């Protein structure tokens, strides 16, 4: 039995007072040390190196985590290989990857705009050439995807789940566009990087195709036919009298009558 103080079977160790305290303290420490670094020349140089690193890699990290997100999202409804427990885990991993990907994406976009690589308006309007513009396009679609992902529960209540599916499936468009953007805008990608993106595109596309086909080719959901006794117009035959006793009491009575 569960109790109000024990609402889980195996109480998680992540949501305790100490963990919360530790996380809050470490976040505060990181923020404060960031501010502290700006006070010294050497600190500013370190910060500059950090920003340069993020300028160079935040987009890559975003693309990699969003690739993982798409794959995991596709995996969450996989019922052939995954048990319910693993599907729950897949959902959690999908959300975690999406969170990381969105964070990296926001960092990437913020840095690109604040460092003057693109004008601020390019955040939403594709106006800086085709390859960078693809990134803008992908970002716009990502907004829809992230918002629907957060507000998923609302759609279940309001009664339009297909609407949610449609909007959230924008990711299947946004993601290839983002890959295209990643491979073409900025520096030239190494060939193995390009190949692995192509491989994951192919894998996800085939999985998606299988899922779509499975949905479309699913036999129509019909009520099952159960065989009922057949109707016949044969003449009635009197049933042969079966002289087996029905109950123990009757058997005893028969036995007594027979002596």
């Amino acid at each position, binding site marked *: 039995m569960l109790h*109000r*103080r024990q609402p889980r*079977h195996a109480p998680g160790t992540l949501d305790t007072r100490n963990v919360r305290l530790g996380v809050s303290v470490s976040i505060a420490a990181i923020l404060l040390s960031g501010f502290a670094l700006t006070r010294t020349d050497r600190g500013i140089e370190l910060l500059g190196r950090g920003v340069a690193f993020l300028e160079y890699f935040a987009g890559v990290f975003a693309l990699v985590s969003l690739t993982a997100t798409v794959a995991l999202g596709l995996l969450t409804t996989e019922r052939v290989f995954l048990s*319910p427990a693993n599907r*729950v885990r897949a959902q959690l991993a999908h959300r975690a990857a999406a969170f990381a990907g969105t964070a990296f994406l926001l960092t990437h976009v913020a840095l690109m705009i604040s460092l003057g690589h693109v004008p601020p308006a390019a955040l939403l309007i594709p106006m800086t050439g085709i390859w960078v513009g693809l990134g803008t396009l992908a970002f716009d679609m990502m907004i829809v995807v992230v918002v629907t992902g957060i507000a*998923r*529960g609302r759609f*279940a209540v309001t009664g339009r789940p297909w609407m949610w599916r449609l909007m959230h499936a924008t990711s299947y468009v946004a993601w290839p566009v983002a890959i295209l953007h990643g491979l073409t805008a900025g520096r030239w990608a190494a060939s193995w990087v390009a190949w692995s993106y192509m491989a994951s595109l192919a894998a996800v596309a085939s999985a998606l195709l299988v899922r779509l086909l499975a949905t479309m080719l699913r036999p129509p959901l019909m009520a099952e036919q159960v065989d009922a006794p057949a109707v016949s117009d044969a003449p009635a035959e009197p049933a042969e009298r079966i002289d087996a006793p029905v109950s123990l009491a009757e058997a005893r009575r028969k036995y007594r009558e027979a002596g």
Partner: protein
Amino acid sequence: MIPHSVPRVLRMGPARLTAGLDHTRRLDLPAHRTLHGDQVPRPLDDIIAQVEEVDMRGRGGAAFPFARKLRAVADAAHGRESVVLVNGAEGEPASSKDAMLLVRNPHLVLDGAVLAAEALNAREVVVATVEGEVAEASITAAVAERRAANVAGAAESRIGIRVVGLQERFISGEGGALVRAVNGMDPVPPGRKRRASESGVDGLPTLLSNTETFAQLAVLAELGPEQYAKTGTSREPGTVLLSVSGGAATAAVVEAPTGTPLIDVLDLCEAEIGDGVLIGGYHGAWLDAETAISAVVSREGMKLAGGSLGAGIVVPLGESTCPLGEAARVASYLAAQSSGQCGPCRLGLPDVARALGGLVEGTGSIDAVRRSVRSVERRGACFHPDGTARFVLSSLDAFESDIALHLEHGSCGRPVRGVLPLPEPEEEPEYRLDVDWTRCQGHGLCAHLLPEFVELDDYGFPSFKTVPGWMVKEASRAVGMCPALALRLARTG
């Protein structure tokens, strides 16, 4: 402050703690000083000697020698600070003496606590009481009265008095739980016992005792041991406060000298014994009619009769109600009051209550009850499982003939009237999981996430039970994770 309605007070013998309460609802500071005189600070050794002379015990139920407690705190404090903590948060629904003292005679309690605090050179006096009740308002007003008197030039003690309001639960009166609550933690008993006299409020040595103990201490200091011992038996001199309720026509707090026959107290409250008298609260034991007639109000007398005086709770049952049903009601209340920390208590007490309920319906057996009791006894951090076990076992013994009737006919013919006082059950929101069957694909994630409330049928489709309010977080998680977006959470009723 004049409270609108106050607990009723009756008296046999001399007026000690209830002096002056015949004429007024609440004794304010001037009235209290007129009655009891000014307070004179005394050295600790004097107080301990006096307390030892009359063998004063803690009045919260455990009857721990108060002199030993005082000495332990003084020893542990040795040069450090200490705290005096007044336990006015009795969790017992049948007890009203703490509330009576705090509402009607708060200055007597404060006098005793301040006397001890000054002798111990304590940092402060903390009065812990139930939040939002009249008692809290009254004691807060009493503290304000003292402060105002000092401003006006009186010589009241300047020691700090803090009032702490607590959520009332059955186990919140337990010493360890009380200390934790005052320290701002969850009001649940600690896993490892720590004596309050060594480490209590803020980790300081703490003199923790019941309101009545401190009131008795003030009376003892006022009268002196000889005068104090003029009433009551020679081994337990003085008076006790008894909370009489249940089948009594006039529920009241009775001040009686020790050695008073129990039947006199019951007559005073116009109570009939009926099937038995519960002594010592819901962790106490029943006295059947014959023993109750000859029982004497004192620790010794109650022990001879087969019970224990505890915190002085006396609940006569009367004849009109089904005694076994009343016991089952209390058992299920006690089960619900488990703080849920210790497994045997959390899981075992509901089983005990169910077994007793089965007995009421005539389907269970005495053996089943005893078996379930055995699995909780002495298996918890606090006294709650043991006390409940004692209550249930004592009910089995006291209502033997009634149980036989129940087992034979399924009922004893008397309805359960609710004679034993229980607090009103709180309104808890309940939730219902609604499923859109046209969308449900039988993924089964909800059954994985909420195994207690979702069952899958042979085809893999769910059926739901009502989800209690404290599970709503988990339930909405299941709603959010449904792959088919088919679940909804709705409030019932």
